[in-house]
């Protein structure tokens, strides 16, 4: 292993050189004083041995070469001394381009920006953080990304060699095993001891992160390695990046599943964290149309056009109850899908269906033990531990092989029975939205309707959670027809994800000229509102509309449940769960960060003009925030 040998020699010679210099200076100073030389003489005469104080070619430059070879467009980071050499090389040696340094105010924002960025761009974001204080800030966002199967490439600054720590803070910011903090919810990590290993591990980490099931990866970049001189160094190479094919279902299992689908009378397909590309959406549409099977899209990804006649997500409960076969595609919580779990004081659950259950999911391939994100165990009749997106094409082909004219006629008849249900679902959604239409605080349905009216003719992307927090109104009322129309949720249900993920998604959408909108919950924004400044500073066009219900509303409901179950009434449930007294002025908050802030909007009639103003400004390339005082959900 010549490269390791080289690096050992480099490291050893660097250390011995430094030690020699220090010893020489220590010896020279008392000698000079003893000779009675004046201060001016000491300053004009060179010391006996000159300490090496500069290098034109630090190891960090090579690290930047590695990052450039992997194609990172951006690096999100809050600046940190533990990776100062790398940051300096990004901005000077690397020309602050590919990657461009995006200044973040919190490491949780850095990682969450990467989370949102990937779900639009399909490329991982590079993130720098201190190995200690930075990673602790970042850890919740890492967990979200892990649960959501999103790759983020995290580089941790660290100073492993205690002999070279210069200050008390260096010690505070050093750690034996930096990645240990997040090893339970990352896919790969390494702590290279040479630049050659740094290159190899970086390429390996990138490949692993991108191979489904995807997840964050961590590399520790030792400060000494980044500062060491590589002037004249030869033999440092960067391995070529290669991508691995994702795990696809074996042919026998896929054939068995196709047979089950062909024979089922009332099958349902449920799509979870499935689609990463337009191709996957197309294959799911093809499969559904071949079989004339209703599809329930959970909203975890943009899987299936919501206005497609076979998208019957709005009837999901009835479909599940009446199904004879349920095929889950990357469904995370299969148990919760097919069981009714009571929220009452005593736990109870009951099956919703007697259907046969089949699954294609790569979830078990990334099973960890400590954090219980894998959900309750659900026995399945056919379980294919493979990537759903990678397996769909062969499943479509297997179904086509089994198709007969009789089956085709039967499926067409089934489709005819389903026809019109989607239109009924949409009509019901519109009727439901009409209730509290003129209410104050403004209903979320009204907010979403006003927003939709002004973005529907644009190339738009909803870069925020489209489900529970907004009562599914966008999914019910809008027309989602492309993979980037929405980016799903946080994954780990950890607050603080929404605002930075939206900024990250907007950063990815910027070069495509898409109008990015974010329906932003108030509690989530207040975790790390500095990301608004990041959006303003980097001119990231994004329309943020505050869903300002002045509460941590989910928690308010949770406390209500507890109070009722304890038979104490709920008149004090607001303690610790509301965000009022004083109310936060989010428009002023945005203005203080350098972006246009509008509001608070309290009357529904004022929404349209505010949104119009906001979109005009966003189209000029700037972020805008509109504060809307809303109903709870």
């Amino acid at each position, binding site marked *: 292993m010549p490269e390791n040998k080289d690096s050992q020699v480099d490291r050893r010679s660097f250390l011995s050189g430094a030690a020699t210099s220090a010893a020489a200076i220590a010896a020279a100073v008392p000698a000079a004083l003893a000779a009675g030389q004046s201060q001016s003489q000491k300053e004009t005469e060179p010391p006996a041995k000159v300490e090496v104080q500069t290098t034109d070619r630090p190891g960090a430059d090579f690290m930047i070469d590695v990052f450039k070879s992997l194609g990172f467009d951006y690096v999100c980071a809050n600046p940190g001394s533990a990776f100062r050499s790398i940051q300096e090389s990004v901005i000077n040696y690397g020309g602050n381009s590919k990657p461009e340094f995006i200044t973040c105010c919190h490491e949780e924002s850095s990682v969450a920006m990467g989370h949102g960025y990937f779900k639009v761009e399909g490329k991982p974001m590079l993130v720098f953080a201190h190995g200690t204080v930075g990673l602790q800030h970042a850890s919740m966002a890492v967990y979200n990304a892990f649960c959501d199967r999103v790759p983020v490439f995290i580089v941790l600054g660290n100073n492993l060699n205690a002999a070279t720590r210069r200050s008390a803070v260096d010690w505070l910011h050093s750690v034996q095993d930096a990645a240990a903090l997040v090893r339970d919810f990352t896919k790969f990590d390494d702590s290279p001891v040479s630049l050659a290993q740094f290159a190899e591990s970086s390429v390996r980490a990138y490949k692993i992160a991108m191979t489904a099931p995807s997840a964050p990866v961590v590399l520790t970049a030792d400060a000494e390695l980044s500062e060491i001189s590589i002037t004249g160094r030869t033999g440092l190479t960067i391995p070529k990046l290669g991508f691995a094919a994702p795990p696809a279902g074996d042919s026998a299992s896929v054939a068995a599943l196709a047979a089950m689908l062909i024979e089922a009378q009332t099958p349902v397909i449920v799509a979870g964290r499935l689609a990463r590309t337009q191709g996957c959406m197309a294959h799911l549409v093809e499969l559904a149309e071949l079989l004339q099977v209703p599809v*329930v*899209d*959970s*909203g975890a990804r943009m899987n299936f056009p919501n206005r497609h006649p076979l998208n019957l*997500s*709005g*009837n*999901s*409960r009835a479909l599940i109850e009446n199904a004879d076969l349920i095929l889950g595609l990357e469904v995370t919580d299969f148990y919760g899908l097919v069981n*009714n779990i*009571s*929220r*009452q004081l005593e736990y109870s659950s009951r099956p919703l269906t007697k259907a046969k259950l089949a699954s294609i999911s790569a979830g078990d391939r990334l099973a960890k033990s400590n954090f219980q994100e894998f959900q309750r165990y659900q026995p399945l009749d056919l379980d294919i531990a493979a990537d759903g997106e990678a397996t769909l094409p062969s499943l479509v082909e297997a179904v086509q092989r089994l198709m007969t004219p009789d089956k085709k006629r039967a499926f067409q008849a089934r489709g005819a029975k389903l026809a019109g249900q989607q239109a009924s679902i949409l*009509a019901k*959604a*519109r*009727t*439901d*939205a*009409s*209730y*509290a*239409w003129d*209410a104050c*605080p403004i*209903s979320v*349905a009204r907010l979403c*309707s*006003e927003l*939709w*009216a002004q973005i529907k003719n644009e190339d738009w992307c909803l870069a925020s959670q489209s*489900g*529970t927090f907004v*009562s*599914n109104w966008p*999914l*019910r009322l809008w027309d989602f027809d492309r993979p980037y129309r929405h980016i799903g949720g946080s994954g780990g249900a950890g607050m603080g994800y929404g605002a930075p993920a939206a900024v990250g998604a907007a950063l990815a959408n910027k070069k495509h000229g898409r109008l990015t909108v974010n329906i932003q919950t108030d509690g989530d924004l207040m975790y790390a509102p500095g990301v608004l400044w990041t959006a303003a500073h980097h001119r990231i066009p994004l329309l943020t509309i505050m869903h300002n219900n002045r509460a941590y*509303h989910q928690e*308010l*409901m949770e406390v*209500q*449940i507890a*109070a*009722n*179950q304890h*038979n*104490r*009434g*709920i*008149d004090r*449930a607001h303690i610790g769960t509301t965000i009022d007294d004083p109310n936060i002025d989010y428009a002023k908050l945005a203005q203080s960060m350098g972006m246009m802030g509008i509001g608070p909007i309290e009357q529904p009639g004022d929404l349209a003009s505010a949104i119009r103003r906001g979109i005009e400004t966003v189209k000029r390339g700037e972020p805008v925030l509109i504060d809307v005082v809303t*109903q*709870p*959900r």
Partner: protein
Amino acid sequence: MKTLLAIALTFASVPLAGQSPVKAADAENGKKLYVADGCYQCHGRQGQGGSSAPVGSYGPRLAPAKLPLEALRAYVRHPSGGMPPYTAKVLPDAAIDDIYAFLKSVPAPPPVKDIPLLN
């Protein structure tokens, strides 16, 4: 649940011996109670309803009230699904009556065809 509702419907309509005269329900007070007792949290401030499928359905529409008062009382005391129970200790019958009066007082929305944004 159907059994519970049936029992509640049967008994709720029978005046009990020694029961004091029922005070007329107060919609204004019901509106305050509707908020103070947290009904709005899932059902919206005008009882318009909360979330619907595909994710996390809860808080069906309550207003304008179509459910009979007796059914509402029965369900509030012994709910299923995600709604927590309200005992008489924390929500007396009279309070439910007032809340019901409020829900009855909420006007119907304009027809969808008259709302351009919903067409």
